[in-house]
């Protein structure tokens, strides 16, 4: 189901969380709301869910204006960063909750819950309490709970933020596979650009309550609209008005007329990638990302002279 938000503004006291934000999400897609803390991404998600009322603007779900509707009528599934598990209910009761509210027959509830627990791989934990589950399990339960009522749209608010790195990566890929199977329109909020880049079809990058850029991960990386987008989505070296990605910085032993001279400060070996920190002759620092082979070929050592040349640079017009 397609989602359209038009000119949404939300204030908390004197703080403006959303400033005339508009957004379009295609039906069946997986969209990431990406941005630093305070950028308004969670607020936008909650406005779409109906958990917050915006000052101005409208929200349309499949062409229907739902701006006046409370959260319980919108048919959205919501997953919280800290799971919001009903701690006094078993896993089974948690997942069944939405169906109970809709007064489905008991047999139907039972089979649907079993089905979902299989899907999220929690089948043996049905009669346990959330307190007995790990963080990753609790989040899978929360997902099953949200999916139980067949929501038209699935909204996830930093769903993996409270989990440790390894579990986060696992669940991230798992979410993508789940989405590919179920094709429910999904929006998830994250501050982790790697996460967004890895699984989203479309990224909405936000900052200070405004949308900076909307596009596929590749578009945001290759054609960033401004400095903020470029530096948020990947590492960047700044040369005056020019911005250069570390892997676009070529290192040469001999100058060739286009290069700038510098001195190797530090060489960091990060597995298959090598980071070379260089101080240029005018005192500025930058770093280049080269492969192991390149580093070996150049026979780099700290203190040696090196010549750098940007292969690709971006300059942004001041608007």
């Amino acid at each position, binding site marked *: 189901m397609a989602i359209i938000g038009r000119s949404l503004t939300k204030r908390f006291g004197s703080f403006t969380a959303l400033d005339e934000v508009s957004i379009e999400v295609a039906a069946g897609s997986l969209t990431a709301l990406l941005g630093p803390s305070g950028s308004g991404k969670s607020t936008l998600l909650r406005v779409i*869910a*109906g*958990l917050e009322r915006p000052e101005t603007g409208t929200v349309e779900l499949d062409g229907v204006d739902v701006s006046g509707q*409370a*959260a*319980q*009528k919108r048919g*959205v*599934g*919501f997953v*919280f960063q*800290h799971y*919001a*598990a*009903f*701690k*006094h*209910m078993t896993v089974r009761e948690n997942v069944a*909750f*939405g169906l109970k*509210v*809709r007064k489905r027959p008991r047999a139907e509830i039972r089979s649907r819950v079993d089905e979902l627990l299989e899907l999220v791989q929690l089948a043996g934990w049905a009669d*346990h*309490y*959330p*307190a*007995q589950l790990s963080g990753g399990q609790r989040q899978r339960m*929360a997902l099953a*709970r*949200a999916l139980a*009522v067949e929501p038209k749209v699935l909204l996830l608010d930093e769903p993996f933020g409270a989990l440790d790195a390894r579990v986060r990566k696992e669940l991230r890929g798992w979410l993508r596979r789940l989405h590919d199977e179920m094709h429910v329109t999904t929006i998830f909020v994250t501050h982790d650009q790697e996460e967004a880049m890895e699984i989203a079809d479309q990224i909405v990058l936000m900052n200070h309550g405004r949308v900076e850029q909307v596009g596929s991960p590749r578009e945001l990386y290759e054609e960033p609209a401004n400095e903020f987008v470029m530096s948020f989505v990947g590492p960047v070296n700044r040369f005056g008005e020019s911005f250069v990605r570390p892997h676009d910085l070529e290192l040469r032993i001999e100058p060739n007329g286009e290069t700038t001279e510098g001195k190797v400060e530090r060489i960091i070996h990060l597995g298959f990638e090598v980071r070379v920190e260089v101080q240029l002759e005018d005192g500025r620092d930058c770093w280049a990302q080269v492969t192991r082979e390149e580093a070996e070929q150049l026979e780099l050592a700290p203190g040696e002279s090196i010549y750098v040349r940007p292969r690709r640079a971006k300059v942004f017009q001041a608007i």
Partner: protein
Amino acid sequence: MSARTESLPRAPAVGSTGAGLGMGFATAYLSLIVLLPLAALVWHSGKAGRSNFWEAVSDPQAVSALKLTLAVSTAVCLINAVMGTVVAWILVRDRFPGQGVVNAIIDLPFALPTIVAGLTLLALYGPNGPVGVDVAFSRTAVVLALLFVTLPFVIRTVQPVLLELDREMEEAAASLGAGPLLTFRHIVFPNLFPAILSGVALAFARAIGEFGAVVLISGNLPFKTEVASVFIFGRIESGDAPGAAAVSVVILLISFAVLLGIGALRRWTTRHDRA
């Protein structure tokens, strides 16, 4: 009432001799002030043989006082369970001018002497009261007095739990289609219930022993409005200390049993925390 175990010390907080002295003092203090009088009470209740204990306890006036006390205390606890939750709710979830003042005066029954409490209730709801309501010398008066002194208990046990309650659980319930009433019934109330039970236990223990607030307004009419504590007082004044002690022990046992029961119920309702 957490189930956390005591932390084992690595270094004593006070030096060893100091600690020893302190412990000795504390033990002596506790024994002298609490343990010995209690022991004397229990011993004297059995004095003059078994038959006198049973005689004292099965005296019709005593039985009536006990029944009245239990009935009224139970009623008061039920009212407190409901009203205490309501007041805690409006103090935590609502915002209105003067909220801070209201929050502070909840503790008035803790601070006000019970005899003064009874007097104030009598002034307003007794003969010569300005609103024309006169409940003096009735069971209503007893209920009123007990409601006053037990007012803070449920409120103060529910407030912190309500404050800590994860609002996201309620939002999750809303996103799953539950309206405010369903959300309260299935999500909020089950999480408040243990706290309500704790408050009720405290209120019950206080109610069955209350004396000062009741003694003026109830009229202390035997078989009608005489509660157990007043009956015991009467026995003491008549010089029948063993009789008074016997009834006291019965009350102690009853309240002990009730508190154990409430405690067990509370542990059962929080089993999901200890899983």
